[in-house]
């Protein structure tokens, strides 16, 4: 399941970027401390990174613009860009986000 060409990695997002989460997990991840790609996918899901969620980058750290603070629907989550690379997003302009209130069918639903 290749992501559509217009999606981006959340790791590349800059402050002020908004959009929708398209896919969580499935990218290469150099595991560390017992955390592998599947585990980071579960953790991202559990803290609210789920397909269809609306996001906005609110904060960037001083060094290397890392970590980032991301508004996710009704909560704010901080994470490193390293982990953010597991999240594929589609950037959307503000008006379009509002229009996309009704979330598109989720990828795995479509697959199933």
């Amino acid at each position: 399941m290749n992501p559509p060409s217009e999606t981006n990695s959340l790791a590349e997002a800059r402050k002020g970027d908004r959009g929708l989460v398209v896919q969580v997990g499935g990218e290469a991840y150099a595991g560390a401390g017992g955390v592998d790609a599947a585990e980071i996918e579960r953790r991202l899901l559990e803290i609210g990174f789920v397909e269809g969620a609306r996001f906005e980058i609110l904060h960037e750290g001083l060094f290397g613009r890392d970590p980032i603070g991301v508004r996710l629907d009704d909560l704010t989550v901080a994470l490193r860009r390293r982990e953010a690379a597991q999240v594929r997003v589609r950037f959307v302009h503000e008006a379009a986000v509002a229009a996309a209130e009704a979330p598109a069918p989720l990828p795995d639903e479509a697959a199933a």
Partner: protein
Amino acid sequence: MSAAAEAVAGESPAHAFRIALVGNPNCGKTALFNALTGARQKVANYPGVTVERKEGHITTPEGRQVSVLDLPGTYSLRARSPDEVVTRDAVLGRLAGEAAPDVLVCVADSTSLRLVLRLMVELKAVGRPIVLALNMFDIAQRQGIDIDVARLSKELGVPVVTTVATRKRGLEDLLAQVDRLMAADLVAPADDPGVWHEPSVAEIRAAHRQAERTLKDCVKPPARPDTLTGKLDAVLLNPVGGILILLAILFVMFQAVFSLARPAGDLITEGLSQASTYVTASMPSTGWIGLLRSLINDGIINGVGSVIAFLPQILVLFLFIIVLEDFGYMARAAFLLDRLMGAAGLHGRAFIPLLSSHACAIPGIMSARVIDNRRDRLTTILVAPLATCSARIPIYTLIIGAFVPAKTVWGFASLQGLVMFGLYAAGITSALIVAFVIRRLFWRGSAEPFLMQLPDYKVPDAMNVARGVWQRGEIFLKRAGTTILSMMILIWFLSTVPLAPAGATGPAIDYSFAGMIGHTLEPLLRPIGFNWQISVALIPGMAAREVAVGALGTVYSVSGEGSALGGVLAHQWSLATALALLAWYVFAPQCMSTLAVVRRETNSLKWPLIMFGYMLALAYAAAFVVYHVAVALGG
């Protein structure tokens, strides 16, 4: 599974009822726990693990005696840290020696229900009766979040109540529902709670969709969303400004720890020295009674003294930490410092333990529990004692006062102050470097992922803060206190026995085990510029760093610890020796209590031994270099 089955089988009509509070981090769970149980709570450890177990007791409206367990916050029953293992095992009734809770109270932050609704899907799979408490309901109302409580209850299939823990609102409703479920539970025994299994990613996604549907059906988004958090974060998380503000907060905190706590600490020290004087006056100095007097004075009063003399500092420190935590700032501090700490191989959360270690390494090491990953936590524990704790201050002050001229440099800075600052900087810098080396050489690979919620800011509740500070103080006194006291008595024994023979000319400590050990070590310490007096003083100095000052006084037969001793040292020691001793104290593991607490926190002898070894090696190397460089430069 079998434990759970046994626990259920073991239930009888007379058994004590149990409820457990479960919820996401920052949902006000502890505030609800405090509101429910008030002062009737007990903090202990779960057996075998260093996770805090908070239990309280209440009587329900129908008269049931119920024990309430406050479980560590979690997003899932899938355990990834020792804390979360406890939450999972407690919920599933797998904890050794504990029955499963009769009712689970799932506590939710009413302003942010998405994640807790997903957790509810998992909790329901456990098969225990559940009450959902929509906590901080007042904030949700203020924001105009419209929650259809009745519909939520219907869709989830569990009773839902609204609570405001800080105002003690909704507690009767909550307990009434607990009563109702317990009565029902007694008629129909709970199902075997073994149906929960670790959800797969597909199941987590499915649970999210379910939560999303429930949310859409029952909750209307805020009409007046919280704008305070956004406004504050724009300033507090500003890449440059945020770090400056953080530094300013740290500065104020240090000032407070030392200036607010110092008078109280001095008062305690003064009181104890009065007690000591009284003991001296009222007991003879010879024979067995004399030995007893020495034990009371030098072992017990000194030991108790060095424990409670730290208490004011630790209370002030924890007051700051808890206020900042409850306000929601600690997560921001971790965010701001993550990259900096990450460069040293530490987790952003290691900031709290390292900060606490500047008062005393013991609460610092104990607070390393906030770090989930075992390696991250061990790294933090190993480097925490390198931070300049306040027990180093007396010895730094003594040597600086005796050897560093009190002159002004650059027109404004005092040279003595600069040396002191340099020693602090050396402490924290070496902690970061050692952490870096540990991560690079021994535990390669990057640290635990940094993934945490930035909760909305909230005004801390005074009662909850007071209770938190009080509990920290109590824990310090109980756990650290007993350890420190027993170490002080051990060191007293080594420094006193055997007694000096009648007609002895040297100081009594010279004839004791400590004296023998000191003399034996002296040839080893000569290359770093230490004479036998220093070698001997280092042994009682193992009790706590500041004890070395008194021990030096004893060895040089100087009474009083002030300028008199400094004057003697200035004559007896070369500048090179003095500087080498300063370098030694930056690194040396001169604190038995810290080692004992590390043993306790890591549940093994291996880590305190590693800590002792590496710190000793660093101390020796640093003192060696400093001594020889100073000698070469004519010191």
